[in-house]
């Protein structure tokens, strides 16, 4: 028995590897041809570089207030102007990229781990477990997403870390659904029965055989969800439920600039533009990835 398992295990990765490489290679080739996706990738790359090198790029301290320089229009000294406390808007946007990236990655990470976990369990075990998990997801989907995030924030209290958790929870059902439907089709395949008859544990089957099959749609969903998460976090901060002052978060910056909109529109305009460009970048790249990895989902 032991020998057979070793033998099969030695062969399986080989088959998977060649197949996997082909799929990913083809997808990458197609992605390279997609101009919009490359623009998206460029924006994401720029965002990551800005976040990493924020201390080197930012001309001023993002939280240092200089009341004498308040609400200055864009100039050579302050390229994007200053806010109501005299802080340099460009510097705050540069540091804000760190927060947006962090929010996107962490909240989607939360959704991914718990969504994938519950989706695999629901699809694999079926029956009552499936019904229980999926009805729970249905109830979550019965709430408009931003409203659910707001409700969760009401429970947890206004804080950036709570906002990430709330957004993660809100996005969880989508991942669960994707994984569950994939698992439902794959679990009837012969190689799963073979693995079972060789005594592979449920956990091993889920991790080694079922999950790799949903990887492509999961990557697509994750990229698009990062765009959504950044937007949702900015919305929560805008409403005063996410990042709190003086954190240079883009949504919170917009919210603070509202009072001076009439006399200093740049305080609102530039952080909003930063959000829009970042979200556009992830959307463009996500769309491209979907076309390349998941032809069935094209144009949906």
């Amino acid at each position, binding site marked *: 028995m032991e020998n057979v398992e070793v033998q099969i295990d030695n062969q399986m990765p080989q088959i998977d590897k060649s197949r996997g490489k082909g799929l990913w290679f083809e997808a990458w080739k197609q992605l390279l041809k997609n101009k919009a996706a490359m623009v998206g990738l460029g924006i994401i790359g720029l965002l990551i570089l800005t976040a990493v090198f924020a201390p080197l790029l930012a001309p001023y301290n993002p939280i240092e207030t200089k009341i004498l320089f308040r609400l200055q229009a864009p100039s050579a000294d302050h390229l994007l102007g200053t806010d109501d406390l005299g802080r340099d808007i460009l510097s705050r946007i540069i540091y804000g990229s760190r927060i947006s990236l962090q929010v996107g990655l962490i909240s989607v990470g939360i959704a991914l781990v718990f969504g994938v976990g519950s989706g695999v369990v629901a699809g694999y075990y079926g029956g009552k477990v499936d019904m229980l998990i999926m009805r729970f997801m*249905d109830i979550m989907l019965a709430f408009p997403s931003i409203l659910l995030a707001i409700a969760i924030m009401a429970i*947890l209290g206004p804080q950036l870390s709570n906002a990430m958790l709330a957004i993660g929870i809100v996005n969880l059902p989508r991942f669960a659904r994707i994984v569950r439907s994939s698992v439902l089709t794959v679990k009837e395949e012969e190689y799963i029965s073979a693995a079972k008859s060789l005594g592979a544990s449920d956990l091993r089957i889920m991790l080694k055989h079922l999950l790799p099959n949903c990887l492509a749609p999961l990557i697509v969903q994750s990229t698009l969800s990062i*765009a959504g998460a950044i937007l949702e976090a*900015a919305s929560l901060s805008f409403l005063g439920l996410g990042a709190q002052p003086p954190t240079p978060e883009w949504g919170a910056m917009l919210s603070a600039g509202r009072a001076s909109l009439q006399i200093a529109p740049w305080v609102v*305009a530039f952080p909003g533009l930063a959000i829009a460009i970042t979200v556009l970048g992830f959307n*463009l790249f996500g769309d491209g990835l979907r076309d390349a990895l998941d032809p069935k989902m094209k144009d949906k």
Partner: protein
Amino acid sequence: MLTYIIRRLLLLIPILIGVSIAVFLMIHLIPGDPAKIMLGERATPDDVARLREQMGLNDPLYQQYLRFMKGLLKGDLGRSIFSNEKITTELFERYPATIELTIASMLVAVLVGVPVGIISATKKYSIIDYLTMTGALAGVSMPIFWLGLMVIWLFSFKLGWFPPSARLSVGVDLDNITNFYVLDSIITGNWIALKDSLYHLILPSFSLATIPMAIIARMTRSSMLEVLSKDYIKTAYAKGLSQKVVIYKHALRNALIPIVTVIGLQFGLLLGGAVLTETIFSWPGVGKYSVTAILSRDFPAVQGSVLVLSTTFVFVNLLVDLLYGVIDPKIHYN
């Protein structure tokens, strides 16, 4: 069809019960004593105890839920901690404002999004197609709260074309019958109020409509492109029918199902987005009410507004499902 409607209505029950449990549990999931949090740090232990008693927080959980449900079925959601008014009354006043804004936005989104999608599809790979689809992608990525503020700055502060907030100008009188201002002004024949309320609706509804409009345009384009490549379209052209007839009579009807699905899904986005738009435009709806309630830790009011908005969403989704049958006679509800 009738069996299907009944089955769908029955399926609603567990979802609505689930929603009610989730909303009910909100208060109990708050870390710490909800009564203490609601009253703030300066509250005396006596005040906290009184509020706990008043809200029935000392009773077992199932009893509290049963009482919550009993109240709910009677249309009683308790009293606001902040204003001490009945929450049902407060929501009743604000709900029409939210629905009016949502419907206006949906109209804008559909009336602009669908034609743009059709033009894009019929002029595939042209400059117009390229421009509209780039615009649509930008629209999908737009933070609506930012867009709202920018249109206020441009159209209210700079150009002075539209009012930046509220539903009606000061000094314009309107008899409230349904609290839907547009409807009320039509019913009462008050044309000044009609013009004024429409005037106030334009900026918030266009801002709120941006994302759904972009999504609908993209979906219309892809759905139309799929249908336009079908053989029966070529046959229709071969028969000598005009492009107008082929597109609107043959293609659009068949392309409608995915478009309607997407339109239905956008209602959720609109109801959620209303929270942001109402805050920006000081629109006195349920969305703004819920944000104020959260910031003042008025949990019963938060529960009420979340419940009302999510129940609306559930019913809209049902309506969309039922609409499929009307649009596509091929669908059998068995």
